[in-house]
């Protein structure tokens, strides 16, 4: 049997959760899909690093540099192991948006170099008119806009797998949208707006059937469920530290070694080179090839502590806890008069982001009313504007839970929604 989470004990590790907001209301934090709060263990790890081992990594002959390098690379190893990967296959970036741009730029950079006679480029990354790139209709802008840019630069065509009325990928379109022209397929694992958990293995397998590369945006899945990058069947997987109890300023990109090795660099400069001459340079092997400039050492150390924290809880227990909360949220919000859930209503293959609209009330006003009761939710298009358009809503209110929430938090939110309806007379 999966162990349950002791929420009361967990909450003691998060000092921010004991503060009040707006007229001394206890904070009810239901915005973890935007960013999670941080436990003391993470704050302490960062502070301890700065207090005892801070130095520039991968250079310098002094003891601090050795210790800082060891802390940085040990963090890489632990974080990679957390998702079933090898340390050399994990790249540190500034955020998940940069991770996805790093991948997108591999295509546009390879294509641009090929057009100017570059001959050491892997043809899988060279795009031209007639090629296609495939995403879905539920992508975060971070996994849509970079691909639009790649298409504009290379002449490739952007295609997408549509979504059904109940918030699932329309898999009937899979074989027709992904075809022999497709060079890369990039899909979200768990939607940040709909909450849908997508069958990415199926999509990746279809991508590989046509020799396309497969990319997964795992920002909402890695923090909330056990994820093994190998089981996803992807070539590249992007996610961020700050949604999984870690610090801001750190993103992750895992890649199959053979694929990372075939990718040209994105941001160039110091630390990512092998040799440099006035006329040209050669580049380091991954992951360093993609880590130009001074890296985010303290943040990596902080994320390593976050990973330890999550491992101590057990990701199976985290997923089970959230599944229960998601069920409660779907049931209680779904039962409200004049409220419509945008995304799957059924608590199957479903993450804890629950978006909804209230008849006659704009999400901004709903969010304001909840805020007045101390409830922090996200309102807006959640960086998934095309998804909002698909469901004919200008925006939604989104509630999202994590390890430190319990069902009473959902009840406070539900009371707030009802109060807003009453106040506005809808």
């Amino acid at each position, binding site marked *: 049997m999966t162990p349950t989470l002791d929420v009361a004990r967990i909450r003691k590790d998060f000092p921010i959760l004991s503060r009040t907001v707006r007229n001394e209301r206890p904070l009810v934090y239901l915005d973890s899909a935007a960013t999670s709060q941080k436990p003391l263990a993470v704050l302490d790890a960062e502070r301890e690093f700065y207090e005892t081992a801070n130095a520039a990594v991968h250079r310098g002959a002094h003891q601090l540099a050795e210790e800082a390098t060891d802390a940085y690379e040990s963090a890489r190893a632990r974080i990679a192991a957390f998702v079933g990967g090898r340390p050399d296959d994990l790249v540190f970036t500034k955020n998940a948006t940069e991770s996805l741009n790093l991948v997108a730029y591999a295509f546009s950079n390879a294509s641009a170099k090929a057009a100017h006679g570059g001959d050491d480029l892997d043809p899988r990354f060279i795009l031209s008119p007639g090629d296609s790139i495939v995403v879905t209709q539920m992508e975060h802008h971070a996994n849509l806009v970079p691909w639009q840019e790649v298409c504009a630069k290379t002449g490739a065509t952007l295609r997408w797998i549509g979504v059904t009325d109940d918030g699932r990928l329309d898999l009937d379109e899979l074989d027709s949208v992904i075809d022999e022209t497709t060079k890369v397929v990039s899909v979200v694992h768990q939607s940040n707006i709909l909450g849908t958990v997508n069958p990415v293995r199926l999509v990746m397998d279809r991508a590989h059937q046509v020799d396309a590369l497969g990319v997964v945006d795992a920002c909402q899945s890695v923090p909330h469920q056990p994820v093994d990058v190998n089981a996803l069947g992807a070539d590249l997987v992007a996610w961020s530290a700050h949604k999984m109890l870690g610090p801001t300023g750190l993103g992750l990109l895992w890649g199959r070694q053979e694929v990372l090795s075939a990718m040209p660099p994105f941001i160039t400069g110091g630390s990512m080179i092998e040799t440099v001459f006035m006329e040209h340079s050669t580049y380091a092997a991954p992951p360093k090839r993609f880590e130009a400039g001074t890296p985010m050492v303290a943040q990596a150390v902080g994320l390593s502590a976050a990973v330890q924290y999550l491992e101590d809880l057990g990701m199976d227990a985290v997923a089970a806890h959230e599944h229960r909360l998601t069920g409660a949220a779907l049931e209680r919000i779904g039962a409200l008069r004049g409220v419509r859930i945008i995304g799957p209503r059924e608590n199957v293959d479903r993450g804890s982001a629950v978006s909804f609209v209230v008849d006659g009330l704009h999400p901004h006003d709903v969010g*304001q009313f909840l805020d007045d009761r101390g409830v922090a939710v996200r309102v807006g298009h959640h960086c998934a504007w095309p998804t909002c358009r698909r469901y004919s809503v*200008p*925006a939604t209110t989104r509630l999202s839970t994590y390890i430190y929430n319990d069902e009473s938090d959902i009840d406070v939110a539900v009371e707030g929604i009802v109060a807003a309806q009453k106040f506005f007379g809808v």
Partner: protein
Amino acid sequence: MDVESLYQDIILDHYKHPRGRVLLAEPSGESHQVNPTCGDEVTVQVALDADGHIRVGYEGQGCSISQASASVMSEMVDGVDPREAESVRRAFVELMHSKGAAEPDEDVLGDGIAFVGVAKYPARIKCALLPWMALHDAEVRAGIDTNAEGAQA
């Protein structure tokens, strides 16, 4: 400060019963403004009538604050001299940047004074300002000089 003082009755009334919410037959300038964080949208159109007074039309969708603000804007600005419209607009912008500490002049702002509480919520100031930004942009596009003596189209 609580949410009831943000949503004053005047604001709710303008939200539920918007004034002047139609587009113009022959606009000489138009501006479509969006709030990219929440998806609020407003389109404001302007023209000058035979007397040199500004005519304002608008439509939009969004939260109560943005849509009520558009209604108040229409009420305060439609049919007045462009320079007077500009002084109202400036007073409203100033009110929004007051952090809620201002004592707004009802003679200048009319129902706009109800927005004083909005200025205490940084995330909502953009909502309130959206139609007024659109008004200013539409005036520029129409070539309406809101500052000089004898403003002309």
